[in-house]
């Protein structure tokens, strides 16, 4: 399968008074066509920073942004901002943010939100753009009448559908969904997940689904990347990671989740995530790991599994 997105050794650091924050540290993964990569980890592990690096939403205090990001085989880190804006952002990659519910403008009708990128960026005629907006709004399960409503007339679930429509209107290759449902109710969340599943089949789009909830992540994931303290500690197909996780952190995440359909005992992961300014030497999960051994003070090996999965842990490699 040709990959739509190929990220290799991506580093994204911030500069702060206290020191350099290594938010994304040597991360590699690929996303294939019509594929969903779930990016799972606790808050503060660098998930959103990774999304920002991909979208190039950069704050002013960037200390380092290096590695390689290839979209459809084209390197984007070499592009300057205007080229990136013209070719990639909102064209190839779009982003549904965590605060999506608040990202609609109160004084604009739904239709104006939807046609804005088409008219401004693509120079489409207004009537044509409105037709396109009509198409997409029906695809996300909202009746056409709502095109002429304001955002405050919509419920939380409907706003989220509009934001999803916005992210799809330019026919992107990849949509980054950053905790798209965590502000929503359980029932609405399930409806949005159903919608995302249907859209993925209908439009050929790939998702990067960012969440802290490993149970929700399994609603979409074809592949799972488990992120801890700025690094991917395990990466592999959903069938493997959810059923037989290898890294102690992935195991911990899965055994700390209450399950409705089976009776398993719950074991929370002790301790809390390290500071990204001064992460522990060697394996960053070492202070919380139940399997820790002396060798863990050295950088863990990168052990390849199957065609493209990997795990970073001394349990699976010898010195």
């Amino acid at each position, binding site marked *: 399968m040709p990959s739509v997105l190929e990220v290799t050794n991506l580093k994204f650091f911030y500069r702060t008074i206290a020191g350099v924050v290594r938010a994304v540290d040597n991360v590699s993964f690929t996303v294939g066509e019509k594929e*969903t990569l779930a990016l799972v980890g*606790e*808050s503060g592990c660098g998930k959103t920073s990774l999304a920002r690096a991909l979208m190039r939403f950069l704050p002013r205090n960037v200390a380092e942004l290096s590695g390689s990001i290839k979209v459809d085989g084209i390197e984007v880190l070499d592009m300057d901002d205007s080229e990136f804006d013209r070719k990639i952002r909102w064209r190839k990659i779009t982003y549904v943010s965590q605060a999506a519910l608040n990202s609609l403008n109160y004084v604009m009708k739904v239709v104006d939100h939807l046609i804005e990128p088409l008219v401004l960026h693509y120079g489409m005629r207004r009537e044509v753009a409105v037709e396109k907006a009509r198409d997409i709004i029906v695809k996300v399960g909202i009746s056409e009448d709502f095109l002429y409503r304001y955002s405050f007339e919509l*419920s939380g*679930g409907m706003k989220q559908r509009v934001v999803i429509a916005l992210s799809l209107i330019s026919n992107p290759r990849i949509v980054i969904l950053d905790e798209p449902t965590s502000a929503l*109710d*359980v*029932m609405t*969340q*399930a*409806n949005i*997940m*159903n919608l995302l*599943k*249907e859209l993925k089949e209908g439009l050929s789009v790939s998702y990067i689904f960012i969440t*802290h*909830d*490993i*149970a*929700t*992540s*399994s*609603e*979409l*994931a*074809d592949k799972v990347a488990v992120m801890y303290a700025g690094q991917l500690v395990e990466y592999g*197909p*959903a*069938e493997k990671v*959810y*059923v037989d996780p290898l890294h102690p952190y992935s195991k*911990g*995440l*899965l055994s*700390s*989740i*209450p*399950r*409705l*359909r*089976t009776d398993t005992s*719950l*074991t*929370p*992961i002790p301790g*809390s995530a390290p500071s990204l300014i001064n992460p522990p030497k060697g394996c960053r999960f070492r202070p919380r790991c139940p399997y820790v051994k002396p060798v863990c003070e050295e950088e863990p090996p990168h052990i390849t599994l199957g065609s493209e999965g990997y795990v970073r842990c001394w349990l699976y490699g010898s010195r």
Partner: protein
Amino acid sequence: MEVGSTSSISGMSDLLVVNELKVWYPIRKLFSIVGYVKAVDGVSFTVREGEVVAIVGESGCGKTTLAKAVTGLVPITSGNIIFEGVDITRLPGRTIREWYSRKVGLIQQDPYGAMPPFMTIRAILGEPLKIHRIGREAYGKEVYTALTDVGLTPPEDYVNKYPHMLSGGQLQRVAIARALILRPKLVLADEPVSMLDASLRVEILSLINELRVKYGLAIIYITHDLATAKYFSDRIVVMYAGQLVEIGNAKDIIKKAMHPYTEALINVIPDPDPRNRLIIRKTLTGEPPNLVRPPPGCRLVPRCPYVMEKCRTVEPPMIKVNELRFVKCWLYGS
């Protein structure tokens, strides 16, 4: 009042009896009241000593209003709340403040919003002691014990910190310490973990459970997540549009939901399983009804897959299935 009461068979005493409780918020226009939002509309249930009762439902179903009514924070329209045999709806405000508010603790949903940013942890935890005039010597000691109880050790490291210096999980621990510092008999936990990371939730809930055993507390756990309710409660009551629709033992409800709404709530919660991505979940479409003018029959009618003619016109009664199980649905009675 028999609905939801289980005291007759267990022999344990009822700590809290809520009977036909209604909380209607008035809608005012100029000087007149033009209608009411029936946030809680005829709710009856009991909580026994040392028991965990989960109240489960969607947002806007009245869960939080119910919690506020039980803590005495909103005026109630009708019905009774009987705590340790005393009807608190008839007590004067002063007695509620001096007696009842010591017996009932509240843990709010958002730990960031629940802490005054300009007070140190010592001051935050000391405030209830000061208000209830608990001796100066006890003051320091109680704060230290409370912090140790919730796992913020050593307490000296935390007492002089401000809320912004703590993480969400640590703040929620402080909130728990504050709710427990007056040694209440009943604690209302209003979505205590929904703002926290999934991996932290179990830790905080286990902590609440440990303290429940240690201090013999009863807990009302308000949540929209049946998965955590299954692990941390003895009984579950399911709430929809201001009313209770199903009451039963936690394990029984999860194993076999009777009410169509409970069934839907169970269907939408995913367990981590790679097969999830291949299925479209059965959900209820539409939104909960307007609580100003709720539908005349069953309130689930517009969303229910099993709707019958009768449901549209006559409100179903709370039907007793057995001593422990009650369901408000015409599917189970005539």
